[in-house]
């Protein structure tokens, strides 16, 4: 029997993703919140939403710290209390996890969780520097590592140990770009070919430009309710039945494995056990493809395949729409975009659409159970959540 609902998602919203000139982070968040409010007409946001938990990675992009009460204000929810969560790229999955705990604790019945990052006003060098702050400072940053660099270290190790190829990594990009052509909110709604990926500019060997996710602007939110009251607000809820969280060292060099991430494995184990599901039960998954190698490692650490077989799983088409476990139907971080703080809840938004049959051209047939996996840093944090159709 499946695990019991921890909380129910009664609504969700997503802003456009992309290079959105002239619109600030708080304004983008309002775009996402407006969609969530309009989807759920039975909800009186001002009265019903009791707390806000907002993920954001860095105040450096917009020179704006203390974003949580600003979001509460700009969404019209003040004086609803608000707090920000930060665990690098997993900041808004952390907001989701804490939203679940806040409801389970009995403190609140309805909580809004979300995330936002406004990144594109900065130069690539500046963005690279801010993102690198999520790596260990004294040894990694001080010696010139970058985020693509950290995942490149894992890619080199994976290629060396398992004979994973650059072509297999390129196929992740091809798949996710294809899926993004069916997502009107995606940052880059454009097909790419394996040759284009392999021929693109080198960023951190062996990772090339098209192996890397996008620097994007965007916001996402979801409204969580105690399962017993969810039917008051929607006839079509999605229940969260599993939540897992793992942590590991800041430094990649301090970890036992360079080809597998313990934080993913720990989060996966906790979430699967709570939901009482196995990998083969998953009908749709949004996984953390900040770099193509990260999606391949995620397949392995989520137990979609054995260690070292992630490249083959990709090549076999198992994770394409129409395959057994479609992964990143939204286009993923790779092509939908990766506004860091928004990503965790943006993954939830895609699973919410899929499980409620609203994913239009990219809809997966017979979708009952979904999964999201959101990674922070080079694997220092990971959250896995399991969802089922209400």
């Amino acid at each position, binding site marked *: 029997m499946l695990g019991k609902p921890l909380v129910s998602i009664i609504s969700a919203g997503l802003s456009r993703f992309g290079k959105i000139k002239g619109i600030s982070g708080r304004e983008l968040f309002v775009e996402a919140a407006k969609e969530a409010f309009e989807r759920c007409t039975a909800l009186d946001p001002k009265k019903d939403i009791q707390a806000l938990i907002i993920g954001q990675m860095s105040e450096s992009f917009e020179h704006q710290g203390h974003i949580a009460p600003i979001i509460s204000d700009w969404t019209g929810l003040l004086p609803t209390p608000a707090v920000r969560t930060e665990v690098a790229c997993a900041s808004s999955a952390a907001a989701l996890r804490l939203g679940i705990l806040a409801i389970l604790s009995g403190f609140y019945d309805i909580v809004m969780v979300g995330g936002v990052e406004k990144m594109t006003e900065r130069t690539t060098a500046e963005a690279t520097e801010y993102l690198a702050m999520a790596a260990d400072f004294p040894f990694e940053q001080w010696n010139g590592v970058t985020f693509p660099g950290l995942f490149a270290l894992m890619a080199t*190790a994976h290629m060396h140990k398992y004979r994973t190829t650059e072509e297999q990594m390129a196929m992740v990009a091809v798949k996710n770009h294809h899926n993004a052509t069916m997502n009107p909110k995606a940052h880059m709604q454009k097909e790419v070919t394996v040759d284009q990926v392999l021929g693109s500019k080198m*960023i951190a060997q062996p990772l090339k430009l098209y192996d890397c996710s996008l620097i994007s602007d965007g916001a996402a939110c979801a409204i969580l309710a105690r399962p017993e009251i969810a039917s008051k607000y929607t006839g079509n809820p999605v229940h969260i039945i599993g939540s897992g969280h793992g942590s590991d060292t800041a430094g990649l060099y301090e970890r036992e494995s360079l080809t597998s991430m313990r934080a993913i494995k720990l989060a996966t184990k906790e979430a699967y056990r709570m939901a009482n599901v196995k990998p083969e039960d998953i009908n749709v998954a949004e996984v953390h493809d900040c770099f193509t190698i990260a999606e391949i490692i995620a397949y392995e650490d989520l137990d979609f395949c054995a260690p070292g077989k992630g490249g083959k799983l990709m090549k076999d088409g198992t994770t394409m729409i129409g395959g057994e476990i479609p992964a990143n139907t939204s286009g993923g971080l790779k092509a939908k975009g990766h506004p860091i703080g928004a990503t965790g809840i943006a993954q939830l938004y895609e699973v919410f659409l899929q499980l409620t049959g609203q994913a239009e051209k990219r809809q997966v047939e017979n979708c009952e159970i979904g999964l999201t996996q959101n990674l922070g840093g080079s694997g220092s944090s990971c959250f896995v959540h399991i969802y089922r159709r209400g």
Partner: protein
Amino acid sequence: MEVGLLALFTYTGEDEMLEDAPFTIEQFYKFIGEKKLMAAKCNKCDTLLVPPRPLCMRCFSTDFSWVELKNRGKLLTYTVIYIAPPQFQSDTPYAYGIIELEDGPRLPGMIRNMKPEEIRVGMELVVDFDVATPQNWPQWPRYFFRPS
């Protein structure tokens, strides 16, 4: 009298100097400035900590000794970075890797003095020292890896 006292305080054997050295990241880099690769050894469980820490993550001990590590290791993985933060942009492309030292601990850093295409996983590298003081905070001298 004053001169004598001063001499008494400054004239200490190397071992005593080591004993006084705090087990901090700052101190690790002070040793790098002296061209020494040092680790804190936990006196309870023998774990070598690089960087040193105030608390042993294995056994919670706070009792450490400084030990000098051999500056040789094996390259576990590497990359060549083309897009870097502003302060490293003029160095691009530069190689960066993780080595496993002969004594066990792992260390990340730049690989210098060799062509990127000659770098191989598994190759032996030595740790060398660049004692120049960088201008930007926190002004720690740097170590790097090079072929032996």
